[in-house]
């Protein structure tokens, strides 16, 4: 009874946040609602027993994406010289979009209600868990059973970064990503930038290490590490790297490169991306470790944005 009340309340609050993010006139407000929405969705995932997803949502949805959107908003304001105007509403387009969304929602809801008993792959995963090299079934799926998806996804992140880099101005190319951040030594922000990173580092590494046994892993750990880096730079304790920096580029690609190399090595075992059960455990941990590095670097660079021209600093 009380469980249903909780779930119902949660659903209503989620819908309210989503509605406000969509319908609100003010872009800043929409971003704040989006952040709030991420926090609420993480709770919903917990209620569904999907701790891994909740972790990812808390880290990426509520954490990093919010920062990304705030930075984007500030960038638009800077370029346009004023608060970005809310999207001019074109009645016909808006109505058509709303109608399409309504039809799709009704269709999905109807289909969902008529679904047979869900028959996922939990049984298959459990049967093969011992040979996967991971104790956490989610990690087993991500790094072994469906490792090819994960490998491609880690490259999707890089593609997004390349896309953002194409937005740089030509004369700024090669320079430091994003804006230069300055703080006064001893200020609240600077102190905060000193205290948080060690804790964050600990948490990030813990999440990766714990990932093979319990919820966690490269994506969640990498996001936390990216956040740590971002805080350090925003607090003015470090400069963002140059986009032409060799070490940065090596960090960006090392995860996917090692994962790809492992995939190719699998052909000696007769297929592609084969992890021999005897070695799967440490192989997964090694891949997770390098993936974490690459994901952290990529996500942080996504947030910093393209390099800005020197004279504007």
């Amino acid at each position: 009874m009380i469980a249903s009340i909780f779930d119902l309340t949660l659903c209503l609050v989620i819908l309210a946040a989503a509605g406000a993010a969509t319908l609100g006139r003010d872009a800043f407000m929409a971003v704040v609602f989006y952040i709030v929405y991420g926090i609420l969705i993480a709770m919903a995932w917990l209620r569904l027993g999907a701790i891994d997803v909740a972790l990812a949502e808390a880290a990426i949805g509520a954490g990093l994406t919010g920062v990304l959107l705030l930075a984007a908003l500030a960038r638009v304001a800077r370029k346009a010289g004023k608060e970005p105007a809310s999207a001019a509403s074109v009645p016909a387009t808006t109505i058509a979009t709303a109608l399409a969304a309504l039809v799709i929602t009704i269709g999905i809801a109807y289909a969902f209600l008529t679904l047979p008993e869900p028959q996922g792959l939990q049984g298959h995963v459990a049967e093969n868990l011992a040979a996967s090299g991971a104790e956490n079934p989610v990690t087993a799926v991500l790094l072994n059973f469906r490792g090819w998806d994960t490998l491609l996804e880690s490259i999707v992140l890089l593609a997004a970064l390349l896309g953002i880099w194409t937005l740089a101005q030509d004369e700024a190319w090669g320079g430091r990503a994003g804006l230069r951040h300055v703080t006064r030594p001893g200020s609240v922000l600077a102190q905060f930038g000193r205290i948080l990173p060690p804790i964050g580092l600990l948490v990030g590494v813990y999440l990766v290490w714990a990932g093979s046994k319990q919820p966690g892993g490269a994506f969640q750990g990498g996001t936390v590490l990216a956040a740590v880096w971002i805080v350090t730079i925003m607090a003015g304790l470090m400069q963002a790297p140059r986009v032409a920096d060799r070490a940065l580029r090596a960090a960006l690609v090392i995860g996917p490169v090692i994962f790809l190399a492992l995939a190719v090595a699998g052909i000696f075992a007769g297929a592609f991306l084969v992890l021999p059960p005897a070695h799967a455990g440490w192989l997964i941990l090694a891949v997770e470790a390098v993936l974490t590095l690459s994901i952290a670097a990529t996500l942080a660079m996504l947030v910093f944005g393209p390099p800005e021209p020197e004279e504007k600093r």
Partner: protein
Amino acid sequence: MTASALALALILTAPLFGALAAMLMGRRGPAIALATIIATAAGTLILLVIIATEGAVHLAIGGWEAPLGIQLRADGLAGGFIATTALVMGAILAVAAKPFAGGKTERRSAYTFWPLALLLWGALNAIFLSGDLFNLYVGLELLTLVAVALVGIEGKRETLAAALRYMMFALMGSLLYLLGAALLYAAHGTLDIALLAERVGSAPGDIVAAAAITGGLAAKTALFPFHAWLPPAHSGAPAPASAMLSGLVPKASFYILLRFWFEAAPDLAGSGVLMLLGGLGAFAMVYGSLLALHQDRLKLIIAYSTVAQLGYLFFIFPLAGGESAAQPWAAGAWSGAIFHALSHAMAKASMFLCAGLIIEAIGHDRLPGMKGIVRALPMTVFAFALAAITLMGLPPSGGFTAKYLMMTASFAAGQPFWALMLILAGLLAAAYLYRPLALAFALPDEDAPAPKAVSRARQFAPLALALAAILLGILSAAPFAFIQIGRPGAAVEGLE
């Protein structure tokens, strides 16, 4: 280690390795691209031989069979698309080597172009080989992001707007597709296409899923009425990017539609759905052609032509799908449409590369300025003309074979409407391609500035592509048989 595993690994990973290497070593893009072309072409050749001699190849990634793992499938269809992609990418990258050359200092567009182009290739190969609905989604996602970035790579304001619009359409498409795949997984407990074929029925969930997947993929293939993003995006990008975007990228979502309707859910393909898809295709064909007639810029003509040409790819659904699949004409309709997809990929990429070379020579692509360009760029204009022959469907091109096969099937199926539309499509293509060609061969204006010289070697790449499209028509017997390998329903008819 088996030869097929080696071939598949090469095809899947060489472009991705190349992209990562290009990302690491900013100024070595062209050299890395060359190495990638060699490695991928080697893998492709091995795979083609294996498919031709031993039939379709199946590989469980990581050794995990469906439904747990992801299955790779390389049949004649996959082989045809992979080989065509390798050819087209090779030519495009050869032409791109000059404008995107490394140089002494790293430049933004030269740096980002190579990893993006190679990632695009890697995403295409991943899609063509995948037999898993979610893995296809990941491939599409990679393809979409890369394609959007390539549209905006020149950093001009209006191309960025086109890129954003493209992204909105494409992401909506991805989302719809993902919803459909999620519904199918919830209902049937698998994402594997072969397993889904045994399990998908006509429950409401299956129908909604099929609608979502089809709608999403149609938006990505720019099927009318989701075509609005295509012309500004394809014409705004730099020519080598346009060639990839127009020749290859929409084929990936079309390919997934084929896999879905012919393999995953053939029983769901009622005549209504198939007619709707074909009908929208016919509409797109007329609409795109008419708009192509009204353009005054070469790249826009070529881009609207893509809307039209993609349109009649969809005739494959009424002609070879559903109840037609078991009919004798299905093989012809199937191969015809695939021939069209492949020859269009070559011809359209060739045309955009030609347009790029013309822009290099005269500085713009407005039609009046092209007068007499044949004197400065004879090979380019010749290549353009050959590509035009394919797009019009004149013999002996691949486009002709495609139209011939589809028209025969259309009469055999008792649906002559599609044949009429195909004839109309050819006439309209001739009309909108006539203008640039006529101008190219006209006498130049006396006061026109002299075009800049473009090296012969670079003019050769589009010519090679256009010739390949013609050769596909001349040597059509072998590709016809090859594309049939592993075709769903082929065994029923005793064709092989």
